[in-house]
């Protein structure tokens, strides 16, 4: 019984999903918002549970499962992201005709996989958790079928996701061969005495490729723009925030916990990936005229900033990563919220469609502006604090060139983030768009406003979260 406490948040997601799958059968087609409400309750309960468990540390299930501060932080983060995505889904999915019960059930299953990653203490658990998060997402990105873009997005995500899983498993097999261990702490223990270093290094590299795909790090990012663009926007919002967080925690567990003593080998690789990802993400975003596609490239760029924290390593680097994940999630959710709100019915994804939004939808224009500023990293937003922590951690360990690339690419990113703001505030709205003075108080609006407010509050008062994150990071086991 005590052991179950160690996996309580992922367990709540999984059990909630199973129960909801059956309950949903009894809910008539036109009342699926009820399913959404129940899924939101499950998600909130898991997040709350993680917060109440704060400080818990230990391992169980024959060393398959462990719990520490980072695991609980991830549980809480993905739980909150789950609630907010459901908040956005009600209106958007109804407009697109995809307000189905499965949508929310699949989301809960995916969330359980994400949460489980933080609790994984064994390569086997990590593999299962990653598949548990991915497989429902393949279906979710194709849920708007028979729309071509959604089907295409699902197909591409599936093929490349499965391809990446192949690399991950083969890498795990080689690491197992080199150490004779599957548990993360066991690998860490035998790492020093291992006689087959080449096997170990190749295995680690293959795992890096596999996980690099999942977090959309260049050069394994090719799927990201198409998948993000084609998937329903609420799914994209979910993917870009929660999946990224889970992927980075997986990297942290495999490379930080298990292969920590091999850091002199993999840290340069992380630094190189980080530099490449920042450049490709930010340069790719420059030329986009489709807002969703631009946000996809922006998501790649942010994977680069986050990799910088892992390349720097140590408490300060990891702390930067764990702080930046919610900061990025808040800004990203606010951007996608504004994007889904700005149009009724068929959404127009081109940036020019947002011209004059400050006059037609002033509230949403403000949310979008805050999101862009936070993604850009302008004070006083959370994005600024997060980037500052990441760049500082890189400089502390002597990775000055990497930090310089980070700053330069951030300057470049100003062009495409600010272009959205300029379009919204200084261009005339297209003909025939109704002007809505003030926003009706809807669930959608509340969700967007909370995400934008979180971006600012975390920027002005980051100390409580930084302290909590530091405590969490020092408890990694």
């Amino acid at each position, binding site marked *: 019984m005590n052991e179950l406490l160690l996996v309580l948040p992922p367990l709540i997601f999984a059990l909630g999903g199973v129960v909801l799958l059956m309950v949903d059968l009894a809910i008539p087609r036109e009342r699926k918002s009820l399913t959404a409400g129940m899924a939101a309750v499950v998600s909130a309960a898991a997040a709350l549970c993680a917060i109440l468990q704060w400080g818990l540390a230990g391992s169980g299930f024959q060393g398959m499962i462990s719990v520490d501060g980072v695991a609980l932080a991830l549980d809480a983060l993905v739980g909150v992201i789950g609630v907010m995505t459901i908040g956005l889904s009600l209106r958007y999915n109804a407009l697109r005709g995809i307000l189905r019960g499965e949508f929310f059930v699949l989301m809960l299953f995916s969330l359980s996989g994400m949460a489980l990653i933080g609790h994984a203490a064994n390569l*086997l658990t990590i*593999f299962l958790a990653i598949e548990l998060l991915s497989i429902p997402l*393949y279906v979710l990105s194709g849920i708007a079928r028979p729309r*071509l873009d959604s*089907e295409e997005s699902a*197909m591409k995500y599936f093929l490349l996701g499965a391809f990446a899983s192949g690399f991950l498993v*083969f890498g795990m097999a080689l690491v197992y061969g080199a150490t*004779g261990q*599957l548990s993360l702490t066991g690998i860490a223990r035998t790492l020093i005495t291992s006689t087959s270093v080449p096997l170990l290094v190749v295995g680690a590299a293959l795992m890096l490729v596999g996980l690099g795909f999942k977090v959309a790090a260049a050069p394994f990012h090719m799927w990201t*723009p198409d998948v993000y663009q084609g998937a329903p926007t609420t799914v994209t919002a979910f993917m870009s925030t929660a999946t990224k967080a889970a992927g980075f925690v997986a990297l942290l567990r495999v490379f930080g916990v298990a292969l920590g003593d091999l850091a002199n080998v993999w840290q340069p690789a992380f630094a190189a990936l980080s530099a490449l990802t920042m450049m490709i993400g930010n340069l790719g975003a420059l030329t986009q005229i489709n807002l969703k596609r631009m946000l996809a490239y922006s998501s790649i760029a942010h994977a680069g900033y986050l990799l910088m924290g892992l390349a720097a390593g140590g408490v300060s680097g990891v702390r930067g990563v764990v702080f930046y994940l919610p900061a990025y999630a808040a800004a990203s959710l606010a951007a996608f919220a504004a994007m889904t709100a700005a149009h009724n019915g068929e959404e127009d994804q081109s940036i020019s469609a947002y011209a004059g939004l400050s006059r037609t939808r002033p509230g949403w224009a403000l949310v979008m502006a805050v999101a862009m500023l936070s993604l850009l990293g302008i004070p006083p937003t959370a994005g600024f604090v997060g980037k500052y922590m990441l760049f500082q951690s890189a400089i502390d360990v002597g990775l000055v060139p990497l930090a310089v690339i980070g700053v330069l690419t951030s300057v470049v990113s100003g062009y495409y983030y600010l272009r959205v703001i300029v379009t919204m505030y200084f261009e005339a709205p297209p003909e025939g768009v109704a002007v809505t003075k003030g926003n009706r108080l809807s669930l959608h609006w509340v969700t967007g406003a909370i995400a934008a407010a979180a971006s600012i509050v975390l920027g002005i008062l980051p100390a409580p979260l930084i302290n909590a994150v530091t405590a969490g990071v020092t408890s990694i086991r």
Partner: protein
Amino acid sequence: MLETNYFVVLAGLLFAIGAVTALTRRNAIMMFMAIELMLNAANLALVAFARQWQQLDGQLFVFFVMTVAASEVAVGLALIVSIFKSRSSTDVDDLHSMKG
């Protein structure tokens, strides 16, 4: 008893064949089969290493990989069927409605 190296080299070859096929083939079903080959190469390596270390852990891992592969097949084939219904092709080069 055969040396583990033989199995690992064979697994590596299978993995490479799978990876190259997945990258070069344009038919979704062929790509999917190639990915399955990659997973099975990993399975072979896991079993070989489990024998080398005289443990069951590696063999246990294989069961989970097979289960996960089965669920991936279910989702993957469903997607392929769904795409085939809407455009009568399983060629991934036909999936180009998005650009940029």
